């Protein structure tokens, strides 16, 4: 456990150091480039690209979380029950759409830039969160719900004090999955001119500069691993409190 924390800390420090002063790491990338070509991405600041990347992902995830959780709550209420079978099938079908297809289809509708990326992240991010909200809410123990009713909790109290807290770790797992997918999709978003770390990779591909590709890839990969890991820690803490066993890896 202590070793894991140490690895986490070192990765985080490395990441921050690299995006803050990439030139200091130039020596590591020089062997990869043809002489004369820049070893470190020089068409913008890695730091601001990282922030923009995170901002897009964060906004899109917040938007998908709000909508997906609300929808999940709605279809599990008696009044929304008629939508439940359809929404389940839609989620299953939706997940067979590759994120790139969603992104590509959004471009003609809203033009290039941040918008199609945001839409793709938002739409694709909905699926895992909605699915997990459904799972979380439907697996609340019936006895706990019966007890809650028996103690005179009204519908809202049951939802906010029993159902949502019990579903929380599962919903969080959905959000984590959604964030990871979004981080990757946002990278591809740079092919439609969204600001983000994908720019670095694409610039590398276009100018045949493997050092750029590697830098962009490394930063995105580290970000993804760290965020996945961090959200996983919160999730496990939440689940442990409920006495649920959570697989240490997934």
């Amino acid at each position, binding site marked *: 456990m202590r070793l894991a924390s140490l690895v986490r800390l070192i990765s985080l420090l490395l990441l921050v150091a690299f995006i803050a002063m990439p030139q200091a790491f130039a020596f590591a990338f020089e062997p990869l480039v043809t002489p004369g070509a820049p070893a470190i991405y020089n068409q913008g600041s890695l730091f601001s690209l990282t922030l923009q990347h995170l901002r897009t992902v964060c906004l899109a995830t917040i938007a998908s979380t709000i909508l997906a959780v609300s929808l999940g709550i709605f279809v599990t209420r008696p009044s929304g029950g008629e939508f439940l079978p359809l929404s389940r099938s839609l989620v299953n079908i939706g997940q067979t759409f590759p994120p790139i297809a969603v992104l590509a289809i959004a471009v003609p509708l809203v033009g290039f830039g941040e918008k199609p990326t945001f839409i793709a992240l938002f739409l694709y991010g909905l699926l895992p969160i909605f699915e997990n909200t459904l799972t979380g809410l439907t697996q609340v123990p019936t006895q706990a719900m019966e007890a809650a009713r028996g103690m*005179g909790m009204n519908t809202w109290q049951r939802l906010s004090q029993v159902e949502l807290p019990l579903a929380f770790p599962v919903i969080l797992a959905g959000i984590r999955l959604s964030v990871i997918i979004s981080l990757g999709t946002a990278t591809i978003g740079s092919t439609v001119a969204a600001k983000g770390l994908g720019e670095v990779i694409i610039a590398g591909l276009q100018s045949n500069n493997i050092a750029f590709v590697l830098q962009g890839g490394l930063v995105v990969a580290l970000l993804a691993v760290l965020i996945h890991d961090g959200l996983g820690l919160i999730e496990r803490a939440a689940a442990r409190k409920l006495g649920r066993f959570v697989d240490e890896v997934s």
Partner: protein
Amino acid sequence: MIEIEHLTKRYGTNVVVDDVSFTVEEGTLTVIVGTSGAGKSTLLRMINRLVEPSAGRVFIDGEDTRAIPEDELRHRIGYVIQGYGLFPHRDVAANIATVPRLLGWERRKIAQRVDELLDLFQLDPAEFAHKFPHELSGGQQQRVGVARALAARPSLLLMDEPFGALDAVIRSKAQDDLLAIQRRLGTTIVLVTHDMNEAFHLGDRIAVMDQARLLQHATPAEMLMHPADDFVERLVGTAERPFRLLSLAKVQDAIEPGEAMGEPVAISDSLHDALSRLMWTGRDALPVADARGVILGKVSVGGILQHGRPLP
């Protein structure tokens, strides 16, 4: 006092509870017993309106429950189910505090009440208050479940198979504890079970249900001696009847003047216990002592056996 008047529940053409009426006196424990599917849980759940009756009414201390908003009614009635339904995301203290919190009690008053209940149920507050349900044994969970139901000092407690998830040894201890707490707090309890032994052990009165109907509502002794029909008689268990009667009677009822040799039996013991002592020691009679150990007389096999048959 709870008055149940002509309670009926129908789902479509299916009658689950059919015109049931009886009264539960203040401070007594009534057991509703019957086979599964007899309608006993539905009857219980109509008292706190978790199930809306199709017909009939329930009065609590003279007040028609239909006149009270559902949630408010349930705040006033304790409810314990099989498996207890403890909230896995809340620690023991927060679980017990559920209804007081819904009622908006002051924080300090809630904390005080929680400690009081943990003490009452022999759970050390320092050790248990901040444990989560999954960290408790089955017996501890059961006690927390009952403590939670009693938190807002309800005058009525409804229990649906509250001991169903416990193994035999812990179950009889939990039953004794419930009786002790009930005597102490004077809470009126209505308890549902399918276990006839539990019914005789706990009930001041027993209501037998079968196929949606109430067959008999009587004290245990009455039920043993005058079962309403064949079904009740079979449920009571013909072979068990004398022993059940002996369990209900105390040594006090069979005490005779005179002296006997051997270890004295306590005057508050049941005749069932006294008889087993007599048989085990191979004696015809044993002395009877009160709580202070003063010998009051004797109890004999012949005297006890007279209590194991219906009075002429």
